[in-house]
């Protein structure tokens, strides 16, 4: 067996057993009918999918796409400079990476509750500024929560790509008379395209399927696809419909992924 096959083997076995097989189960569920108490039963049906083709659910899909795109864009804007800084920090690189991740050793729920405290009507910000802004329970708060929790997911792959950026390239650009912004735009960003792509993927997709953040920071007033899926598997106890909804979610993500990959490949050919 050649080296490449050997390298791929563990991943192939593990994913076949624990990713592909469960997914096949989800597909099967989406074609079945709701059991009385969670679980599924015969008959086989396409009804779950026809239920989805309804303006109510499509509106939910749209809202999720918008919020996820905004979050990803914000993560990219905020995360890129941070990743750049860390990649060029020399011997402090590792320390900075650890500092970046330090807050994430605490539980996600706990961090979100801390934001609740900061943003509340009588919370930290309003107390310091002596105002009565309603900072919580709106789309802005949801965005803040999403960006906060997924920023490292962007920064880490971005850093992985940027850290091998050769400073000589930047010097060369400067020697040739390029202003810093032009260097950024013409040199750094194109080279870091794979990192940007990887980071965007790692942020966009969980944001699309997020449910805790819109629930807690959005006050449960908006329903994203993640909330729909979560609700179907828990309160509504409709696993088949939940499976169909998650297949929709996965399809949306996969399509975007494919588009992203194709455009990056196009860039590579240029």
């Amino acid at each position: 067996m050649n080296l490449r096959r050997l390298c791929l083997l563990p991943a192939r076995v593990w994913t076949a057993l624990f990713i592909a097989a469960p997914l096949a189960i989800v597909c099967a569920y989406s074609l079945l009918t709701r059991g009385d108490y969670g679980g599924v039963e015969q008959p086989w049906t396409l009804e779950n999918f026809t239920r989805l083709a309804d303006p109510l659910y499509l509106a939910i899909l749209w809202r999720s796409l918008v919020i996820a795109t905004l979050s990803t864009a914000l993560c990219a804007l905020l995360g890129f400079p941070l990743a750049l800084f860390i990649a060029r920090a020399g011997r402090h690189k590792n320390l900075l990476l650890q500092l970046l991740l330090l807050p994430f050793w605490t539980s996600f729920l706990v961090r979100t509750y801390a934001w609740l405290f900061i943003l509340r009507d009588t919370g930290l910000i309003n107390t310091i500024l002596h105002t009565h802004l309603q900072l919580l329970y709106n789309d802005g708060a949801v965005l803040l929560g999403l960006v906060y929790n997924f920023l490292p997911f962007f920064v880490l792959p971005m850093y992985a790509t940027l850290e091998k950026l050769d400073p000589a390239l930047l010097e060369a650009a400067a020697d040739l008379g390029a202003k810093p912004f032009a260097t950024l735009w013409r040199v750094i960003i194109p080279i870091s395209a794979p990192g940007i792509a990887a980071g965007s993927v790692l942020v966009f997709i969980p944001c699309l399927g997020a449910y805790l953040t819109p629930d807690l920071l959005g006050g449960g007033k908006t329903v994203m696809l993640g909330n729909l899926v979560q609700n179907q598997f828990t309160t509504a106890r409709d696993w088949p419909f939940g499976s169909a909804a998650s297949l929709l979610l996965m399809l949306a993500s996969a399509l975007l992924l494919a588009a992203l990959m194709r455009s990056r490949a196009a860039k590579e050919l240029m």
Partner: protein
Amino acid sequence: MNRRSFLTASATSLACSTRPRLNVYNWSTYIDPAMLELFEHERGIRIRYGTYESNEEMLAKAITGNSGWDVVFPTHSRLDPMARNGLLAKLDHRRLPSLGNLDPRFQKPVWDPHLEWAVPYMWNATGIAYNRTQVEQPRTWNALWSPALKGRLTMLDDPEDVIGACLQKLRFPFDSTDPTQLQAARAEAISQKRLLRAYLNAEVRDQLVAGDVLAAQLWSTTTAQAMRADPKIAFAYPEEGYPLYCDCAAVLRESSRYELALEFLDFLLQPKVATANAKAADTATANAASGPRDPVLYPPNDIYQRGIWPEALPANAQRYRDRLWTEIKSA
């Protein structure tokens, strides 16, 4: 935990691999840990205690049939479906001599008149928690639609409670499956949204205490906790009616420790155990009264009569409500 107790615990657990063990799966903070220790000490049975946050979490495990848990605590409306799906073991009353300790109301409960499947454990109600200094005492669910409370009121993030409250506000039955009535309830819920701050569960407790929220649809137990922290919080049981929930102790059919499980259930029925648990959990116990009772947790009889015990709905009614809930939340 300090080193000595850790070492003792591990030594004991190693030594006690011969002691019989019982796996109990309960709602979080729903028991007094001292009572668990007492049981272990008195009966020589080790308890493995796990917790969950919702019936669905527990059900997802129970349905697998090999979850490893022996005793679970479903809410009363889940008992019938669970029993019909063969998930529960029938209770042998000969091993439950203390059943007589139950409050008369719970000896023949409407969801399980012969107490075949589960022993009532703790119960609570949904009503209106409010800030007594800023809001006058709510009499009906209508109080939660008051424009004066705009941005300062919340409802529970639970379709059964919210749709139920809307139905009761319109004087329809809580369990209604009539589409016209349900559509009317939906309209009510959507009209409330512009006044609504958020759909919150137990986390609203902090906001009530801090004064961000002036009125909330909330459970009696959570309100009791808030009241202990801040006496200006009060609780009201709406006149049109309100839902009651009872969590009951049941034994899973998959369990191979039936006798031990029943010993534990019987233990929970002992008066001092029930009182200690109720105190620790800040809930009302299904056991008979012993000592003064908080009227927030134990409403007086005339108010109690207005309460209703929701039942499990048939599948298509559940689906209809679920769609309504998605519509309400997305509006």
